């Protein structure tokens, strides 16, 4: 299933929004961000809500366009690709969203939702082959057949996230961007999903960009961490270095918070 080297690079990317009376007030969601992801790398994008990490996830999947700078995939600027190249790109770079139950078409049965990637990229030749492939993946992901005839609102968060990841894996992407995939899930379900992602990375040699605000999760999943605040990158380093020798003040602050403390003694008015 290994399909070659992947390299995604952000070069001085800025995403800004104009607001105010004459559009003169500028907010930068992402400010001059540069980093790269190699094949088989697992990188965590860590930061608070509103620091720009979700924007980066969307820029990388062409759901948003950068105001300045380039995003390059294997040497090609993703925003200057032909239609055919874009389709290939979408297959290679996929995203797992935060709210699993809200990313499926509420009017489509789950069978059709699951079959959609197979149909879009013509990965199977007939309905019989399609059903066989779906059955194969369903058992790989520990899902039962009765789900296929249901609608998205009739399944749990954990099942929905499994289905979301399953659809993506059917395309054999080179890079998976996970945008807070387990934030809305319970602890035990989170553990199952994270294990699942890890197994997939190991077997398929897929690269991972894991976006989260949860230090413990990123520490467990990723080899390298990018720390962001207010749209800018503060630090990029291996996981051990970030936790043991944080360079930036903010990173030190973040890492320090993982240690538990006595509530009453710390409060200041």
């Amino acid at each position, binding site marked *: 299933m290994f399909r070659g080297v992947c390299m995604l690079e952000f070069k001085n990317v800025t995403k800004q929004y104009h607001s105010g009376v004459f559009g003169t007030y500028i907010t930068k969601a992402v400010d001059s961000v540069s980093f790269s992801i190699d094949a088989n790398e697992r990188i965590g994008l860590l930061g608070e809500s509103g620091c720009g990490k979700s924007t980066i996830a969307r820029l990388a999947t062409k759901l948003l366009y950068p105001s300045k700078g380039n995003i390059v995939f294997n040497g090609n600027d993703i925003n200057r690709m032909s239609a055919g190249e874009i389709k290939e790109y979408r297959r290679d770079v996929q995203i797992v*969203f935060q*709210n699993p139950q809200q990313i499926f*078409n509420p009017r489509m049965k789950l069978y059709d939702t699951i079959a959609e990637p197979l149909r879009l990229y013509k990965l199977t030749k007939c309905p019989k082959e399609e059903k066989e492939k779906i059955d194969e993946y369903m058992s790989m992901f520990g899902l039962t057949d009765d789900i296929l005839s249901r609608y998205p609102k009739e399944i749990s968060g954990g099942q929905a996230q499994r289905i979301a990841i399953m659809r993506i894996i059917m395309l054999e992407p080179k890079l998976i961007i996970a945008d807070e995939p387990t934030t809305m899930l319970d602890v035990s379900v989170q553990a199952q999903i994270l294990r699942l992602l890890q197994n997939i990375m190991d077997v398929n040699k897929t690269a991972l960009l894991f976006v989260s605000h949860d230090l413990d999760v990123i520490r467990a999943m990723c080899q390298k961490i990018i720390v962001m605040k207010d749209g800018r990158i503060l630090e990029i380093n291996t996981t051990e270095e970030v936790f043991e020798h944080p360079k930036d003040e903010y990173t030190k602050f973040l890492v320090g918070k993982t240690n538990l403390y006595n509530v009453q003694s710390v409060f200041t008015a």
Partner: protein
Amino acid sequence: MTVGPSLCTHDPNAVKYSEKCISPCAEYPFGTDFSGRCVLCRVIYGAHISIGVALVVVVVGAFIGVTVGIVAGYAGGAVDSILMRLVEIMLSFPGTIFALAVLGTLGNGTINQIIALTVVRWAHYARLARGETLTVMNSDYIQAAQAIGNSRLRIIVSYIFPNIIGQIIVIATLSIGPVILAGAALSYLGLGAQIPSPEWGLMINGGKEYIRQAPWITLAPGMAAVLTVFAFNLLGEGIGDMIDPRLKEKAEAD
């Protein structure tokens, strides 16, 4: 509508001056009018026309309106602005007067009545469809659909359309009533359907001189119109409840 004509024992257009203005009785449940025609039969045949016209207007109007609305909502930018200005211009004309103007230009007749009413109505559906499209566009599943590689056309057909059609059907059903009344109003004013059509508005107009001696001539079509509008409103609300039982499900979730 298919059952109706078989209930009629009399020919709705048969003129019998000997039996004019008979009050409601066993043979003529709604009496007869000034030309001796059975009022009940005329009301039933009139239903064909009034409801038929309304359904055509609503279906064609919704089709045009939804297309314009989805295109405007999805495309955004200049296309959206231009289309919405057009919609706003259409909506700023008072409905009945605009219909009168259209009929005045095109001439009388049922087909022209349909055209006039459709021209007035489509803008309402366009505005609704655009609003619903924008709501759907903000949903996570549209982003997921784009990310997985769906083309723009597929997103409109498989994602946007099925998710807005529910609301459109409800509003369309609820608007059948007002369209029936608008059609009746136009016929009452002498435009649209012509004598001897048993269209309700025309019947009400015809009966207005006999309101003292034979009130049933105006009352019957009037009541029929009211009851039909009421029935379609209930239908519209029922469909709405069927399509949107979200509130019940939340209680079950816990």
